[in-house]
């Protein structure tokens, strides 16, 4: 099945050989048969699908030579001590720490929450204990934005992840935190977080994607959010993979009647990172808030593709993706608002703002609309420019040095996104991560 590896040609499957898949399958043999069947089918798709080509519109502007799948391996287990796991300083309702595709530490939810029916467990446990519930939602939304091959690889090699289930009417005061580590040379990880919120439930879930070392890691993850009638979900992802890493992350959000979902992605790490986000507004009153902040430095490349699909009348979505570009970094934002023929009274907004902080950086914007209903309010905007000279002058005139003024203005630029989080400790934790990116510890 795998193609012969040639030093000249890029192999479409790279390190991901049939032997590797067979070994993985053996390690999850205790899981339900339907899941193993799906993994086998996904593996076939992964091997059959080609790597992205230059003519693929969904990969326009991306550096395709950076997508080689060679040099990776399914990494051995590590201990929490080896990870140097750093706490986040936020009070949480529960924590799960995964490293190299295995659970290495956990702080379970309180007995009280468990009694109310809240589930916060590993995906493997959920597959064994809540099979039908998982089956209904696990990877239920097919990818549509170009990463079909990598999504298939994720399904095939997904070992474990976080499963969150919020029963009807339950509200969590504190966030649930999930950590996904990659450790060791060439470590390939497949993070997964699945959140299901039943009617009127409310919670915040945070994913942290981290590298334990500076090695070249491979991450191919997925986070799916399902918000039922009137549910309110806040999802935050903080991505700080190592600067040598290649990452593919794909999100699917489904919002049912009157549900509100806010997803904020902070992108800081990786050599080349692709993020796909797909929101479906399926019933009247559904709202999706799609936010992202990216700080691109060095020669990093961040490729973000978004899709807002309005499938029912009276739905709304709001997208705000902000990128700050330093050195010779490159960003790509490709967004699409789709309004289905029956989705009258849609209110959709899409905005991409690029702050150019270097003369060598490159920002690409592809803000798209496909509208098939006429009674709608759909707008988008994309801007790329440097720090406003007048604002800079104003601060300098008050004695603030230029470098400090620029930093203040840059954080001011981010604040428009961060202020949408109504959780102060989380807000501050994200700012701390951004500060580290701007001033890395020596």
């Amino acid at each position, binding site marked *: 099945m795998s193609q012969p590896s040639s030093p000249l040609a890029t192999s479409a499957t790279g390190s991901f050989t049939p032997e590797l898949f067979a070994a993985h399958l053996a390690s999850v043999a205790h899981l339900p048969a339907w899941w193993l069947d*799906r993994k086998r*089918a*996904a593996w076939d*798709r992964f091997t059959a699908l080609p790597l992205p080509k230059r*003519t*693929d*519109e*969904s990969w326009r*502007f991306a550096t395709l030579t950076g997508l080689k799948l060679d040099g990776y391996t399914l990494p051995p287990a590590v201990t929490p001590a080896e990870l140097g796991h750093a706490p986040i300083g936020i009070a949480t309702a529960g924590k799960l720490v995964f490293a190299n595709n295995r659970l290495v530490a956990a702080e379970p939810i309180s007995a009280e929450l468990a009694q109310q029916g809240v589930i916060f467990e590993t995906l493997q446990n959920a597959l064994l204990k809540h099979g*039908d519930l998982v*089956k*209904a*939602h696990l*990877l*239920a*939304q*097919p*990818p*549509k934005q170009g990463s*079909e091959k990598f*999504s*298939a690889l994720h*399904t095939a090699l997904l070992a474990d992840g976080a499963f969150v289930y919020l029963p009807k009417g339950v509200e969590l005061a504190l966030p649930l935190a999930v950590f996904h580590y990659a450790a060791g040379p060439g470590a390939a990880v497949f993070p997964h977080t699945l959140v299901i919120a039943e009617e009127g439930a409310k919670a915040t879930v945070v994913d942290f994607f981290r590298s334990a070392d500076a090695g070249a890691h491979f991450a191919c993850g997925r986070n799916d959010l399902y918000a039922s009638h009137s549910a309110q979900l806040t999802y935050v992802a903080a991505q700080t993979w190592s600067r040598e890493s290649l990452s593919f992350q794909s999100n699917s959000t489904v919002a049912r009647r009157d549900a509100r979902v806010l997803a904020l992605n902070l992108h800081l790490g990786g050599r080349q990172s692709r993020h796909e986000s797909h929101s479906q507004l399926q019933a009247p009153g559904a709202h999706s808030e799609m936010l992202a902040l990216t700080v691109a430095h060095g020669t990093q490349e961040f490729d973000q593709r978004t*899709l807002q699909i309005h499938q029912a009348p009276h739905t709304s979505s709001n997208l705000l993706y902000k990128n700050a570009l330093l050195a010779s970094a490159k960003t790509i934002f490709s967004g*699409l608002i*789709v309004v289905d*023929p029956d989705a*009258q009274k849609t209110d959709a907004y899409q905005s991409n703002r*690029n702050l*150019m*902080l*270097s*003369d*060598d*950086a*490159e*920002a*690409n*914007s*592809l*803000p*798209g*609309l*496909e*509208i*098939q*209903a*006429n*009674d*709608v*309010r*759909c*707008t*988008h*905007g*994309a*801007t*790329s*420019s*440097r720090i406003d000279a007048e604002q800079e002058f104003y601060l300098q005139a008050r004695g603030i040095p230029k470098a400090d003024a620029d930093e203040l203005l840059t954080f001011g630029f981010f604040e428009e996104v961060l202020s949408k989080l109504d959780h102060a400790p989380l807000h501050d934790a994200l700012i701390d991560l951004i500060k580290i990116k701007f001033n890395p510890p020596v």
Partner: protein
Amino acid sequence: MSDVTDTESLSAPIADTVDNPVSGIDQTAGNFSYKMDYEFDAGTGLSEKTVRYISTVKKEAPWILDFRLAALKQFYAKPMPTHWATKDLENINFDKIRYYLSSGQKPKRTWDEVPDDIKKTFERLGIPEHERKFLAGVEAQFDSEAAYSNIKDIVSKQGVIFVNSTEGLREHPEIFRKFFGKVIPTGDNKFSALNSAVFSGGSFIYVPKGVKVAQPLQAYFRINAENFGQFERTLIIADEGAEVVYMEGCTAPKFSTSTLHSAVVELVALKGAKIQYITVQNWANNVFNLVTKRGVAHEEAEIKWIDCNIGSRLTMKYPGVILKGRKARGEVISIALANDGQHQDTGAKMIHAADETTSNIVAKSISVGQGRSTYRGVVHIPKHLKGCKNNTECDALLINSNSRTDTYPAITVRGERNSVQHEASVSKVSEEQIFYMQQRGLTEGQAMSLSVNGFINDLARQFPMEYSVELKRLIDLEMEGSVG
């Protein structure tokens, strides 16, 4: 949801799911075709023989034949751009198209010399008698050859060359050869290659240094034979400090099988020159209108495309400006109206290649019935340029609940010394406005028409007076029966 098994199935891309419902459209309205005798006819289908035939009939220099043959090879080699464009392109049957027809007459110099047949065509096109006189500077293209060509005395006295492509390449190669095929290389895309292989007609214009042409130069184009594609070639060179306005209006008879129009228009504005190129396109609902238009603006030069697309089955046209010299300026003003069975896939390209260059794109589209309008644009500001600015605005108006509009811009900016802004909006006609006008005695149709005209008014005002009148008339016509 529980029965979902094939989670990563290769779903079709989201775009292009709507078929063009061109069949079933009433194609009798505006049916004005009549029999023509053609002296030269290259027959249907495209081969090296066709290309050689065209070149022989035109008595072309050997280098032009070589150019055509090389282009033909490129045309065969290039794929259809359906990985991003609509699948409707696959419905073009290149073997059923006539690539060259000519009534064999030499381009005419005076109105009296124009054959009655062709005068009849102008009449059927609805150009009033007094306007025909006004169109004194018209280079009117009748099928492949310019059937009527009257250069105003005043223009030629200024040293302006205004001829068709055959004449231009034959009589003035020292001027035109240098720029011919340089702004739009043959292999730019499949259709520019096709045009380069079989082009005929079009206008070649040279405006000498410092000459400001007071009146717009005009050309009317027309397709008048079934399955006959028109492949005109236009090249306008404005020398240093020169200024010229060129206008083209297209109307075509309606036919039951598809026709293809694939033009190439190249503009060169040398230092400090200004070129304005105005198009009103109203092809019949069965015409594929696939046009490549691009200009190069040198230092402090200005190129402005005013592009209005009302007709055709599928139009794909993205006028571009390469801003090659410091302080060059490019502008595209675009109006598109898509009715049932039509897809207006239009936009603009702005390639900044020098410091302090500025560009502006304003696009407005109206989708009526099942019409689909698409804005597609490229703004590119490469490395190490400074002081470049682009502003893009796209507004779409949707008239009926099943109308469709898409926006696909692509913006690349490198470096911190440039700025780009892009905005787009989609809306419908305000119910309040319609109500207000109905209160004052207008019918719903009249109110709608007025409202739509208001939507494009700020752009329509930039057209020459007679074009904006024609535009208003066309919009009134298109809005008929779109309400109620």
